[in-house]
């Protein structure tokens, strides 16, 4: 097996991506086989169709945007474990800065890969340990009638409020339109399903942001 390091990394990367894909898909498959439950394809598809247009387009944008910054090895590894923009990417960039190497150089490739591998290992171990240590506590928190049950019923507003505030602070101009649109839709159709609503708000958001970009408002 010859070829440069560049060629080799891409070969390993392709193999690792495909094996990761298989591992990922085997999880829900194993759940179905073990519990002997086979959800109707139409329902699953229904759920999927609402998220795929968004998720898969973002995936394309992310791959194109992050690949140049992370190098080959770093990119293959980052995408397997996720949490790229909030963890792997800054970690890789930080490491390259500390080692004083350029992002698209051979050295950058090496440093970025090592940094992201270290990060992936650390994340995986921390989350695994956390889950194991926390598991006896969970039923206490979430069972019906417990003090905390109402809080767990408001996870969605809590999560998206926190997540949103961060984004809106940075991008308030492009945030107003989709939120306003979402609210207007719900005023007229209060039970509009969230999956479809997302379609609408994302489309509005993208169009609005693009127009603002063209008009140099952002």
């Amino acid at each position: 097996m010859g070829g440069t390091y560049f060629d080799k990394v891409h070969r390993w990367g392709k193999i690792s991506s495909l094996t990761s894909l298989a591992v990922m898909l085997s999880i829900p498959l194993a759940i179905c086989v073990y519990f002997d439950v086979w959800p109707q394809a139409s329902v699953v598809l229904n759920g999927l169709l609402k998220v795929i247009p968004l998720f898969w387009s973002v995936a394309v944008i992310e791959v194109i945007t992050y690949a140049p910054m992370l190098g080959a090895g770093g990119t293959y590894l980052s995408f397997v474990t996720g949490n790229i923009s909030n963890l792997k990417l800054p970690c890789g960039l930080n490491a390259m800065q500390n080692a004083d190497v350029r992002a698209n150089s051979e050295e950058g490739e090496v440093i970025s890969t090592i940094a992201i591998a270290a990060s992936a290992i650390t994340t995986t171990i921390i989350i695994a340990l956390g889950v194991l240590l926390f598991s006896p506590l969970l039923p206490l928190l979430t069972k019906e009638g417990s003090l905390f049950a109402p809080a767990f019923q408001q996870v969605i507003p809590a999560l998206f409020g926190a997540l949103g505030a961060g984004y809106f602070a940075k991008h308030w101009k492009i945030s107003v339109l989709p939120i306003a649109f979402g609210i207007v839709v719900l005023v007229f159709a209060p039970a509009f399903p969230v999956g479809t609503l997302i379609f609408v708000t994302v489309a509005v958001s993208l169009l609005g942001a693009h127009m603002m970009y063209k008009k140099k408002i952002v």
Partner: protein
Amino acid sequence: MDFKESGFMYLLGSGMVVFILLQSLFFMKKAWGQGKKLGIKVSTLKNTVVSSVLFTIAPALAILVTVITIAGALGLVLPWIRLSIIGNIGYEVTAAQSTLEAFGIPGGLNFEVKDKTVFAAAAWVMTVGSVMPLILLPLFLKKIQKRVGKAVNANAKWADLMSAAAFIGLIAAFIARSVIGAGEKDIAGDGAGFLSIATLLSAMLFMLVLQRLSKKPKLKWLEPFAMPLSMFLAMGVTTVLTLPQDIINLEWRG
């Protein structure tokens, strides 16, 4: 302990952990070897590892917290798996919610999922929704890397904006729902109302405050925790707001 946290599920989780660790170690070893060939000092390589580990601890704990928040509905193990392999809390929650709606389940993720079929379906949607990068990379990464420099640099700002806009669009839907969406008429507490708005606004407020604070030099460590902390604090506000009801109930039962 119900099916969501059975030995079998933990087995799946453990398998996944081993897989990720092996893959990471493989790439690290190869890169290390190449680094030495390129003449990079071993001390630099070691420092890279140490600094990356330290850098990661806080964000990893933050991700752990998000796993716990959706564990109420989906058990600990599925969120654990999903957030460790191409995971991102905003997307996983959306995918799960979308599945529950497809089943016509009132309340969505606000309540525990007790049906195995629904659980399995949620696992499928969360997984398939996220697989795209693993298909794109083997097909395109090498080509992208070859022509990348000029194209992305010219449009990096636009690409960043579009990514942010997509994510903002997603968040906007949930926020709108928390403000004015209807839940199922029979279920108390899942439609928009005082509690959801109070929680939403608290979360936003806490986040803005914590982000501000984390810009101060001594408080930089706060930054990755700002989001999960805000979430937790907002949920704390919910708990406090529902306390009077608990107190009243206690008296009645007593």
